[in-house]
C-alpha cells in the first residue's frame, strides 16, 4: 500500500501542450514508474490492451489500482501523442484525482460500472474542470461552468476522464483536418486521416491511449472515424443519450455515443451514458436495457437486410464491397437470415442532410458573438457590428463559415421553401423507407464509409468530395436510427475496414449482438498499429 500511497501523491506531474498541440509531460520520477510496474503482476502493455470490462473487473478485484491504470494510459499518451495528436487537452492531475477517488470507492466496496477505466472525451462535451473548445478558436480557453450529463455519468460510474480529444471544428468535417488545433493522424498510417469528426477519440482508441472514448455523431462522426481507425463506434437512437452539455452542431441530428476497441466495451459505455435526462427534453424516457449482458446472444434467427443501393454504388471501393459481402456470409453462417433490401430515397440523403444540418448549425453557432465568452475581437471605433464581424471572422475556420453561410441561405426568406422545407420532406420520405424495410428485417448491413482511407490534405480542398464520405451514415441521423460500425480487417493497403449495422429505433441490443458476432469472427481488436 505504500507504493500506491506514493503514487497517490503524484502531484509534480504536469502536462505541456505546445502550439502545434503536441503533448509532453514532465518526467515521471523513475522510481514511481518502477513502483507502478512492480505493484501488480500485470505489465503496462497488458493494461493498454485490456478491455474496459476487464480493467474494471481487475480494479474491482483489487488486482489493479485505478492509479496504475491511469499511469499506464498517461504514459502511453505521452509516448504516442507526438505522432497521433489525438488530444487537445490532457490533465494528469485531474485524472489522478479521480483515480484516487475511485480507489477509495473501490476500497469501500463501491466500485462503479466503469471503476478505474480511463475514457477519452471528445472536446465537444462540456467539462467543468477542463477547457472545452469544440476544436474551434472561437472557444479557445473556454471553461464551461458545468459538466455535460454524459460526463457527469461517466464520473459517477468511476471512470477516469483522461482528457479532451481533437475533432473537426464544431464537428463539421469528415477527416479531422478542420480542427483549429491541427489534424489528428491515423495510428494505422500517420499519413492518413483518422476520419472525423470524432477524429481524436477514434485515433486515441486505435493508438491504445484509452480503452474507451466518447464521440458524437451528427452525420457519421462516430461511425466513420471508427471504421477508418479500426475500432467500434455506435450512434445510438436519437434521444437515447442526453445532449445536455454537448455543444450543438445540428440539434435534430446530434447524438452522443460510445467508442471502444471491442463491442462489449461499447455496450458497457452506452449502459452508463444512456437514459432519460430531465435537462434534455428530447431525451427518451425509456428504460435502459442491460446491453453488456446481451452482446453474446448470437444472431440465430436475426433477419438481416443487405442494403444493395449502398453496396453496389460506384464510389464504393472493391475491398470494402468484398468485406461487406463477406460479413453477410459470416452472419448467415451464424444463423442469421440475410436478404437484399432497397432504400428508394437513399439518393436524397446527402442533399437533405447538408441542408438541414447547416440550417440548424447557422442558428446554433449564432451564440459565438464575442459578447459573453470565448474569443472577442473589438474594433476601435467599430461598434457592435464590427465586433461581431471581427470575432466571427477570426474565430471560425473555413469549413464552419461555409456551413453557416449555406445554412443561413437555405433558411432565408424566399429560399426556405425550395431548400429547407423540401429537405424536411425528403427526410420524411427517407424515414418511411426505413420504416418499410424494418417490417421485413431486424437489422441492416451496409458499408460505413465508401473508402477505407483518406490521405491528409486529400479532400479538404474539395468540400463536396468530403461530404460524399458521409453517404452511408447520414441517412441514419436523418431517420434518428441507431447504427454501429465494427472493424472486419484491413484492406489491401493495410487500412482498416468497417461495416455498418443499423436498426429501427431502440434496437441497440440487436446491433450489439450482430456486431459482436462479426467481431468474434474477425477479432480485429487483437491487432494493433505500429507506432
Amino acid at each position, binding site marked *: 500500500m505504500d507504493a500506491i500511497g506514493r503514487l497517490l501523491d503524484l502531484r509534480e506531474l504536469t502536462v505541456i501542450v505546445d502550439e502545434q498541440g503536441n503533448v509532453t509531460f514532465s518526467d515521471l520520477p523513475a522510481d514511481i514508474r518502477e513502483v507502478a510496474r512492480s505493484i501488480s503482476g500485470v505489465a503496462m502493455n497488458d493494461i493498454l490492451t485490456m478491455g474496459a470490462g476487464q480493467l474494471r473487473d481487475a480494479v474491482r478485484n483489487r488486482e489493479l489500482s485505478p492509479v496504475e491504470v491511469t499511469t499506464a494510459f498517461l504514459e502511453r499518451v505521452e509516448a504516442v501523442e507526438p505522432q497521433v495528436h489525438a488530444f487537445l487537452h490532457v490533465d494528469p492531475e485531474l485524472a489522478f484525482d479521480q483515480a484516487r477517488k475511485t480507489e477509495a470507492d473501490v476500497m469501500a466496496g463501491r466500485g462503479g460500472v466503469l471503476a478505474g477505466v480511463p475514457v477519452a472525451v471528445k472536446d465537444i462535451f462540456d467539462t467543468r474542470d477542463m477547457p472545452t473548445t469544440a476544436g474551434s478558436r472561437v472557444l479557445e480557453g473556454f471553461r464551461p461552468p458545468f459538466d455535460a450529463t454524459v460526463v457527469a455519468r461517466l464520473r459517477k460510474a468511476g471512470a477516469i476522464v483522461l482528457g479532451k480529444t481533437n475533432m473537426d471544428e464544431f464537428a463539421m468535417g469528415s477527416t479531422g483536418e478542420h480542427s483549429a488545433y491541427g489534424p489528428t493522424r491515423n495510428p494505422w498510417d500517420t499519413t492518413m486521416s483518422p476520419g472525423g469528426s470524432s477524429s481524436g477519440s477514434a485515433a486515441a482508441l486505435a493508438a491504445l491511449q484509452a480503452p474507451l472514448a466518447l464521440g458524437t455523431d451528427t452525420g457519421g462522426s462516430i461511425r466513420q472515424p471508427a471504421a477508418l481507425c479500426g475500432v467500434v463506434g455506435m450512434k445510438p437512437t436519437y434521444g437515447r443519450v442526453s445532449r445536455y452539455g454537448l455543444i450543438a452542431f445540428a440539434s435534430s441530428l446530434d447524438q452522443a455515443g460510445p467508442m471502444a476497441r471491442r463491442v462489449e466495451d461499447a455496450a458497457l459505455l452506452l449502459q452508463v451514458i444512456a437514459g432519460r435526462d430531465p435537462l434534455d427534453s428530447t431525451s427518451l424516457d425509456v428504460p435502459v436495457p442491460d446491453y453488456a449482458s446481451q452482446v453474446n446472444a448470437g444472431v440465430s434467427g436475426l433477419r438481416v437486410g443487405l442494403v444493395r443501393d449502398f453496396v453496389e454504388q460506384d464510389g464504393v471501393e472493391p475491398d470494402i464491397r468484398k468485406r461487406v459481402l463477406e460479413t453477410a456470409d459470416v452472419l448467415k453462417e451464424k444463423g442469421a437470415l440475410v436478404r437484399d433490401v432497397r432504400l428508394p430515397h437513399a439518393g436524397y440523403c446527402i442533399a437533405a442532410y447538408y441542408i438541414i444540418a447547416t440550417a440548424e448549425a447557422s442558428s446554433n453557432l*449564432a451564440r459565438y458573438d464575442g459578447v459573453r465568452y470565448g474569443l472577442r475581437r473589438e474594433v476601435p471605433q467599430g461598434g457592435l457590428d464590427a465586433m461581431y464581424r471581427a470575432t466571427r471572422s477570426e474565430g471560425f475556420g473555413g469549413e464552419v463559415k461555409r456551413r453557416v453561410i449555406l445554412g443561413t441561405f437555405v433558411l432565408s426568406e424566399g429560399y426556405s421553401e425550395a431548400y429547407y422545407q423540401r429537405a424536411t420532406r425528403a427526410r420524411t420520405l427517407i424515414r418511411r423507407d426505413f420504416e418499410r424495410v424494418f417490417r421485413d428485417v431486424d437489422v441492416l448491413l451496409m458499408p460505413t464509409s465508401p473508402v477505407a482511407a483518406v490521405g491528409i490534405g486529400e479532400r479538404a480542398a474539395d468540400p463536396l468530395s468530403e461530404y460524399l464520405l458521409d453517404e452511408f451514415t447520414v441517412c441514419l441521423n436523418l431517420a434518428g436510427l441507431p447504427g454501429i460500425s465494427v472493424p472486419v480487417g484491413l484492406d489491401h493497403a493495410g487500412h482498416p475496414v468497417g461495416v455498418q449495422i443499423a436498426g429501427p429505433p431502440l434496437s441497440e441490443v440487436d446491433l450489439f449482438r450482430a456486431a459482436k458476432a462479426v467481431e468474434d469472427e474477425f477479432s480485429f481488436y487483437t491487432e494493433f498499429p505500429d507506432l
Partner: protein
Amino acid sequence: MKGEVMDLPDDYEVVIGLEVHVQLKTKSKMFCACSTNFGDSPNSHVCPVCLGMPGALPVLNREAVKLGLMLGLATNSRIRRRSRFARKNYFYPDLPRGYQITQFDEPLCEHGSLRIGMGEGEKVVGITRIHLEDDAGKNVHDPQTGRTYVDFNRCGIGLAEIVSEPDMRSPQDAYLYMREIHSLVTYLGISDGNMEQGNLRCDANVSLRKKGEQAFGTRTEVKNINSFRFVKHALEYEVGRQLDVLRAGGRVVQETRMFDSHRGVTVPMRTKEEASDYRYFPEPDLMYLEVTDQMMQEAKAALVELPGERKRRFMREYGLFPRECEALVASKDLADYYEAVVRASGDPKRSAGMVLTELLGALNKDSLDIMQSPIKPGDIAAIVKALASGRLSSKMAKKVFAQAYGGQPVQRLLKEIGSKVVDQEQIAKWVDEVIAAHPDEVRRYKAGKQGLMAFFVGQVMKASRGKADPGITNRILKERLG
C-alpha cells in the same frame, strides 16, 4: 385631448391591430429554473441555459403553458392540442443564443375574441393568435464610460404574445382593448400587468382607408408604447400623421415607428426593406407541446369570472349603472370586496354607493389599496343596513363610516347612535301626537300654508328630544297630512 376621445375623421376609417406582450407570472423562467424576480442586482438570476452557454438546452416551464392556456380559454380561443416552438434568429447582445424561442406556424391558441366597452359602445375584437415565447435581456448604456452592459435577469422570462385582428376603429378602441387585457391578465393572475415595469407591452399596427373601401391601407407599426396613456397619445398622433399625409395626396410608407413619449410623436425606426429576415424554423431542442386533457382541466379550474362577464352581471343582477360596474370591476379584489358587502347587506345599490364614494374616496386619500382597507366588508354592510332601515340618515352614515374608517368599532358606533335615533314607528307616534295637539295648524297647513311644515318638524323634534331623524319625520308628516 387629455382623457377625451379624439374626433374621428369623416372621410377615412381608422384600422388598428395590436400585438400585446404579456410577461407571465411564473416563479421561474420559461426554459430554466432561474428566478423571475424584478429589480434585483444585474445578472443575479442567470444560468447556462438562459445565458445560452454552449451545450445548454431549454426545458419548457409547465406553469407558463398553464397560464397560456388560461389566456386562450379566457379569450375563447381555439387551443391547439399540439403546438410547437420555433427559432426566430437575429443578432443582438441582449439575446444570448442568437435566437428567440417562440411559436411560429403552430401557436398554442388561435381564433379567439375579446369584448371591449359596454352598452352602446360594446364591440368584439378578434384575436388572431396567442403564442408563448421567451424575453430578451436588457442593454444598459453607461453614458459615463460610453459602454453598453447587458443585464440578463429578464432574459428567458416567459411571455405570451396576443395578436389581435385589425378590428379596432379608433385609438379609444385600442385603449379599451389594452384595459381589457390588463384587467383580464391581472384578474387571472397571469401577469402583474404593469406597463411601466414592462410586464405588459404593446406594438400597434395602424392604417387608414377611405370610408367604404374594403382593402386595407398601408400600415405602420408603432413601437415603444409603454403606458396606458401612451396607447391613446401615440395612436392619436399616428392617425393624425397618416391623415395629413393622405389628405395632402401623399402615400403612407410601410415602416416601423417609435413613439417618443417626451415629444408625443412617432418617429421612423426602420423601413420594410430594412426589416430582418428571422429565418424561422422549428426549435429542435424542444418536443411538440402536447396539451393533455388534464392540462386543459387544470387551466379551466384556474379560471375565475372574467371582468367583462362580471361587469355585465353586476348590471343585470344588481341594477347598477355602467359607470359603477366599470369602477367596481377595475380590480378583482375590489369587485370581491363589493360582493362581500352585498352578501352581508342584501342591498347592492346602497353598497355600491358606500364602496365607491366613501370607501374608495378614503382609500385614495390615504393611497391605500382595497386589500389594505382598515374597514371590513361586514362593517360597511352594517352601515348600509342601518341606512336602508332609516336608522341612519345618509349624513349620519357618512359620519359613522368616517369614524369606523378611523378605527372605531362599527357596532359600538351604531349602538350609540341607536340610543339617539329612534325607529320609524316611534317617530310616527310622535308625529301623531303633534298632529293631535295642533288641530289649528293642521287646518291652516291643509288650506295651503306649506311653511308650517317646519313648525311640525320642530314639534316632533321637541317631542323626541332631538332623536328623530328630520328626513323621516318630514316624510311621515307629509304622509299623515296628505
